[in-house]
């Protein structure tokens, strides 16, 4: 074992960096644009004169003028003030699956054979790209049991929207006008409900049983009717209690002619352990930027790969990638009879597809199972130690204490005993170089926080995080002020006035608005 050290002397990079507009010095240039050749100049003349005067921009955009090295330095500093997986033990952003993003995959994704491809090139010039897309589809079929995957959706919510669209179209094609309800659960991701609503469905949220935390099975049974178009749920939900009734639930929905869609954002503990098809789902998605190691990019580009059973293949967004084995030729197939159309231009974020493909190839079947086994081991190890050693913590729904690969805890007791809220702890833990995330809304669990250790962190890493929680808990009981006024060693201090984000008179969504509404308080006047 290595040494477990709580970073009491940690301090995040703090450059006190101005806003880019404040760096502007008229006359400086960040980059020069290629000039046109003399012959073109001669022939084209002042091409601007060809524009009707009313379409010609009168005043140039008020963009800053900053020399190249200053732009670089500015953004380098901002990057240093950001806590990515590469620099922290990123287990506090539960539900986000902040695992290691292998650097080799980034290097491969930066090849000009990836970055400089146009999607409408002739198929014979992009055989390598199509082969990777096709083979990742085959691999995800093995993991899930589904028949076909598409890669157009750019994230989990986008994938949920795609699935809601498929359910909508399926019932439309089959003339099932009465089917206008989607069942989800209150502890499934908010987008499960929001995307169903987007497609015009009435949404029914099944609440959790207060004892077990599982979706209330009786309430669910009563809800299913001829109006049920489908069910869109997570399993496990963000509490990470695996639902033992899931197979019965999908059967009940099928009995009334509904479709079952699986939100597999929380799949990291299930690779090779549970297959979606065996739970009775008709479709599902995997987040390639979570479970399959592609980096999250501050919130994308991500990718939610949607898979469906054979009978729903014709509903997928076009195109899909097919392989002519005889000619060994990969091609785009637009011929899907009931296709919902498209959810994004072209075929999805290819660099993310490539990284996921590389990740699976580096692990194989045994490695993928080991990922899930260790993710589950890590999580349950943390549960034991946190509950034992961090005063004021409880696990959500303690009657079902065994969790898959993440856990939702509660600081309710800490709050009752010390007055310290989870939001206070969220700020304080940044002083040790960590994230901590609460929960999606609504907060079913009071004072919630969610930890997802994944497979990427060593026991020492987990122990360090636990030590931070222990220290903060101790502070809460002995010296709560240090938490209430946190952060102290982060990039910035506490926001002064939160009404800046709610009051239309004060909010400043862009710099120009800030100058207009708050100029006297800004640093703008040099």
């Amino acid at each position, binding site marked *: 074992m290595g040494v477990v050290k709580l970073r009491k002397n940690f301090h995040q990079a703090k450059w006190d960096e101005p*806003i880019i507009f404040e760096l502007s010095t008229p006359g400086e240039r960040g980059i*020069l644009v*290629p000039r*046109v050749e003399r012959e*073109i*100049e001669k*022939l084209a003349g002042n*091409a601007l004169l060809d*524009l009707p005067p009313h*379409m010609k*921009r009168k005043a*140039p955009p008020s*963009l800053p003028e900053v020399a*190249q090295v200053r*732009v670089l330095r500015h953004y380098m500093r901002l*990057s240093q003030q*950001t*806590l*990515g997986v590469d620099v922290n033990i990123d287990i506090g952003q539960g539900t986000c699956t902040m695992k290691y*993003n292998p650097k*080799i995959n980034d290097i491969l994704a930066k090849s*000009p054979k990836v970055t400089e*491809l146009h999607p409408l090139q*002739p198929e014979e010039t992009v055989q*390598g790209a199509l082969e990777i897309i096709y083979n990742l589809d085959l691999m995800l079929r*093995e993991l899930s049991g589904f028949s076909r995957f598409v890669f157009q959706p*750019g*994230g989990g919510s986008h994938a949920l929207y795609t699935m809601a669209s498929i359910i909508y179209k399926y019932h439309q094609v089959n003339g099932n006008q009465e089917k206008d309800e989607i069942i989800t659960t209150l502890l499934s991701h*908010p987008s499960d*409900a*929001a995307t169903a609503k987007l*497609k015009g469905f009435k949404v029914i949220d099944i609440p959790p049983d207060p004892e077990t935390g599982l979706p209330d099975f009786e309430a669910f049974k009563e809800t299913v009717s001829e109006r049920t178009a489908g069910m869109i749920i997570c399993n496990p939900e963000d509490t990470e209690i695996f639902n033992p009734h899931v197979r019965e639930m999908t059967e009940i929905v099928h009995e009334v002619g509904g479709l079952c869609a699986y939100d597999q954002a929380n799949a990291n503990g299930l690779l090779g352990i549970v297959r979606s098809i065996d739970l009775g789902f008709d479709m599902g998605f995997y*987040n390639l930027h979570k479970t399959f190691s592609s*980096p999250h*990019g*501050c*919130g994308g*580009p991500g990718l939610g790969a949607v898979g469906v059973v054979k009978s729903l293949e014709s509903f997928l967004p076009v195109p899909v990638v097919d392989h002519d084995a005889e000619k060994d030729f990969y091609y785009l197939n637009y011929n899907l009879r009931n296709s919902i*159309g*498209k*959810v*994004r*231009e072209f075929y999805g974020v*290819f660099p993310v597809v490539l990284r996921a493909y*590389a990740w*699976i*190839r*580096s692990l194989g079947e045994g490695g993928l199972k080991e990922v899930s086994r*260790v993710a589950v081991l*890590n999580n349950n190890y943390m549960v034991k130690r946190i509950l034992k050693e961090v005063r004021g913590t409880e696990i959500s729904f303690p009657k079902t204490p065994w969790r898959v690969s993440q856990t939702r805890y509660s600081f309710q007791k800490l709050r009752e005993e010390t007055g310290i809220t989870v939001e206070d702890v969220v700020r304080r833990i*940044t002083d040790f170089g960590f994230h901590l995330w609460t929960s*999606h809304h609504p907060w079913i669990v009071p004072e919630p926080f969610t930890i997802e250790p994944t*497979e*990427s962190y*060593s*026991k020492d890493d987990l122990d360090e995080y636990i030590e931070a929680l222990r220290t903060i808990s101790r502070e809460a009981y002995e010296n709560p002020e240090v938490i209430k006024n946190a952060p102290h060693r982060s990039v910035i201090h506490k*926001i002064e006035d939160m009404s800046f*984000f709610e009051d239309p008179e004060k909010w400043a969504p*862009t*710099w120009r608005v800030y100058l207009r509404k708050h100029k006297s308080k800004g640093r703008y006047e040099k």
Partner: protein
Amino acid sequence: MVENIVKNRAHPYIPNSHPRVQKEMLQEIGVSSIDELFERIIPRKLQYKGKMNLPEPLDSEYLLKRHISKVLSKNVSCEEYLCFLGGGTWPHYVPAICDEIASRGEFLTAYAGEPYEDHGRWQSLFEYESLMAELLDMDVVSVPIYSWGHAAGTSLRMASRITGRKEVLIVDTISPERRKIIENYVEPHLKIRWIKHNSISGLMDLDELKKSISSDVAAVYFENPSYLGFIETQGEEIAEIAHEKGSLVVVGVDPISLGIIEPPSHYGADIVCGELQPLGNHMNFGGGLAGFVATRDEPEFVREIPYRIFGIANTVTEGEYGFGDVAFGRTSFMVRETPGESKEFVGTATALWGIVAGVYLALMGPHGMREVGEGILKRVKYAMKVLSEIDGIVVPRFKAPHFKEFVVDFNSTGRKVKEINRKLLDYGILGGIDLSLRFSELGESALYCITEIHTKEDIDRLRDALENIVRR
């Protein structure tokens, strides 16, 4: 012990795969094995016991790199062939600084942290919003979304919620890809009526617009430049016709044009959307897309944006900026399905491409944006001129000013675009998009794209190749 070390092939991505560590952790948990742990979590009957048909692992980084490089070598990139394809993603120059920042591990691997520990991420995205706001001359820009198509769908649904109306009018020259996206996105809430274009100029048929506009219309949507490359010059008239009936004007725009062309807010747009890929993002086989949505700083508009908006505020320390979510309560993160009409959804989208677009605008500044726009305009004029000198080729197909794309009409050559494009490959050229399928009324026509990356030599090479192909 030495032998164990020699044999140890623990996976480098999984620190705790060593049996000794696992044993210690299992002891802490109080179970004897990981299998036993799974028995307690997942009913045995739901566990998969079969074998997956996956390829054997490439169990070293070297072999992995070698394998993937070999597969990728089958691709021909636009660095190797001369690319004249656009139509939704375009070959523009990506400054080295954009690549450098996009590759920074801290940005690349961050996700959803709070304004305190992810301050740099919040500031970068706030700056992205602010830089785009200047380019568009609009006050509010959200954190980016998947693509132009999705952003257009959102803009139309926003307009519907703001006006309480259920019909939208869209000009029929928009991108076929976006058309499919919008159709699915507004179904079943909104009815789309397609407005014809003038067959000579390509511009929106204003008579048809006047006939179709009514107090049921939430928004009129058109794009600038249009998918077919020409500039829609009637923005003001369209806006006047729409506003007179209380309808909103939504315009999709290519931001690379805005150093020289008026932003839509200047000719009456209420909501503006478009694509960020041209601003410093690689094409990535169509994966470099990111959409933006912009509008005015009026609560009834801002509250209908479904995406996150990062705002600035002061902290308790003098002179220190902090950031936070503006009106977070409007997003699906807070309200889930909403009791009334759907307010759409928000989730992981394309933040990093947005940061890069910000870096690009910071590098370019007002002069860079003017130069790039002017240069494209001139190259396009040159290209249209030299191509039009080829017998049988009509270019541009539409009589209107063009920006970076234009339709080349091959009908009089007696050749099919498909055949021409195949032959162009022999010259190392990726010819323009074949329009014969999706704009059948144009017959054998192709959409060509010229940007700042194309030199005179490149354009002349295209002319010579086309001349040879058409002549034979």
